[in-house]
């Protein structure tokens, strides 16, 4: 098993390994193996197409958490220029599970807020596996209010298993911090575009996800509770996570059909991690496109449409 690939990606991994081996052989021998490599590449592509054309919601849930999936700072690096990270909630701490700062999107100043996961173990721990504490949400609130003051559009990137269930987080008012952000974001007088780039984990995701436009990458997920959490409560066992993932409808496609997601952003063949640069380019264009549309609206129109959008999730048929 290649640990950088999920189980259903293993056949692809094996082919990729073979191609790599042949390439190395090719470098120090006279035999012309270009043809063989090309043959294997085509096979790998069609195999990937086949596998990815029929993914179950649970497969997608695991792709959303893929160890090699691009994180918020990867997108910041590829999409924006002139990024200055800004730290701290001004009252308790800086939470590394949420990053924020000013940058430019194709030259235009914007405010960026996003969950941040770590790649290696020490970084994962530092980022608390992308699970924010109240100070993370309060930092986000501070930066978003500042964005409103200086008329910067807000772009948020969602990628969290959820808010951190810890003693200190409860002591410092996790519920209030999340609730306050929902209220704040519903009235900020500046466009807000949110993109779920990985896991959209419940209230911890929504706390930076109240917006004018919600985009989801093709293999990202968004749900009220993790499939494992839902399974262990309703099915009494986390092993039923695949069933729970399907029942809740956690995928971008399903949420688009429910009217929750405005736009599904296509990922490169095999997922964002197979070609982060291409993913970033597609996302950049989608962000710019949505921002251009939102900038056509007056502030009153913007807020009215946002309120309509937020209160639309009714009990009707």
């Amino acid at each position, binding site marked *: 098993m290649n640990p950088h690939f999920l189980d259903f990606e293993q056949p692809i991994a094996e082919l990729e390994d073979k191609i790599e081996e042949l390439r190395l052989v090719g470098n120090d021998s006279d035999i012309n193996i270009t043809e063989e490599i090309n043959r294997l590449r085509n096979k790998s592509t069609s195999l990937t197409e086949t596998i990815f054309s029929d993914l179950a919601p649970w497969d997608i849930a695991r792709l959303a958490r893929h160890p090699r999936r691009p994180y918020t700072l990867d997108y910041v690096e590829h999409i924006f220029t002139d990024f200055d990270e800004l730290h701290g909630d001004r009252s308790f701490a800086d939470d590394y599970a949420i990053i924020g700062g000013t940058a430019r999107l194709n030259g235009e100043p914007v405010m960026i807020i996003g969950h941040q996961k770590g790649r290696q173990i020490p970084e994962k721990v530092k980022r608390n596996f992308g699970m924010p504490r109240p100070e993370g949400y309060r930092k986000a609130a501070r930066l978003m209010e500042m964005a409103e003051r200086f008329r910067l559009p807000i772009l948020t990137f969602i990628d969290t298993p959820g808010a951190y269930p810890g003693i200190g987080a*409860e002591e410092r*008012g996790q*519920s209030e911090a999340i*609730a306050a952000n929902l209220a704040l974001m519903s009235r900020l007088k500046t466009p807000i575009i949110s993109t779920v780039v990985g896991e959209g984990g419940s209230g911890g995701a929504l706390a930076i996800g109240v917006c004018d436009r919600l985009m989801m990458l093709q293999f990202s997920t968004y*749900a009220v509770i993790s499939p494992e959490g839902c399974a262990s409560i309703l099915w009494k066992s986390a092993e039923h996570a695949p069933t729970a993932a399907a*029942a809740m409808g956690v995928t971008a496609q399903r949420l688009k059909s429910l009217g929750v997601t405005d736009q599904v952003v296509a990922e490169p063949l095999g997922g964002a991690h197979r070609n982060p640069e291409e993913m970033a380019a597609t996302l950049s264009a989608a962000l710019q496109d949505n921002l251009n549309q939102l900038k056509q609206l007056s502030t009153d129109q913007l807020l009215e449409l946002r309120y309509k959008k937020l209160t639309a999730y009714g009990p009707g048929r």
Partner: protein
Amino acid sequence: MSSWLDKIMPGMNRSNAHQKSTVPEGLWKKCPKCGGFLYRPELDKNLDVCPKCDHHLRITARRRLETFLDAEGREELAAELEPYDRLKFKDTKRYKDRISHAQKSTGEKDAMVVMQGSVQGVPVVVAAFEFSFLGGSMGAVVGEKFVRAVDRCREQKIPLVCFATSGGARMQEAILSLMQMAKTAAALEKLKAEGIPYISVLTDPVFGGVSASLGMLGDLNIAEPNALIGFAGPRVIEQTVREKLPEGFQRSEFLLEHGAVDMIVHRLDMRDTLARLLAKFQQLAPPVLDPAPMPIEVPDEPVS
């Protein structure tokens, strides 16, 4: 229903199981906290607060509204709203069946009842959660009823009070239940902008999506004594941090100490306290408070 709740909040739902055998039905009830025998008429008069240990027992949404609002001039709002299983959700049971079972056992259409009326003469709209309806969980009907309550307050410039008791978002409505958090928060922000007061009363228990939206957004957040209130459930936290939770963790008194609630108010003082507060916020004269109730004569306790 008790089992999944028990899983996220152990001990929360244990009250009914072991009482029935020892206590005669009807006239006597056993306090789930101190185990003392409670004389039903006395308990009724005491608004289901144990006269021996002061434990605040859970009460239904309707009893909450009836005991909080003035008797005259009550009007129920949005009573017609019914849940709809848009996702065709099925776990070990169909959501549709869970709904009809909950409707039969509670007599309510969903987990919230809203009424307009007055408290000590101060006009008010009151929303109350029904915990017995799928753990008071918030789905699209609860969110919509809450927003209708806010809308009525905005139309008539009268304050809003919400009595929350809820396990959080309703999983069977998946993402649509999550969106109720944003929906209710957005509506409250409008109310706030118009200078209309909102008092959130947190009663045992309030967790998850309800705590992290309308529950904590009051101009005043008020808790009943010893209510369990938090974002993550105690068991989830214990499993995550792998240490024993401190004594009194997530209780009202803990929240007061950590600055999350403005005050703790005894159920018997709720009408007076809220009426006095709302009258001040609304620039009204001090309300005329209820006379103190006459004590009830309690017969000898049954022998167990």
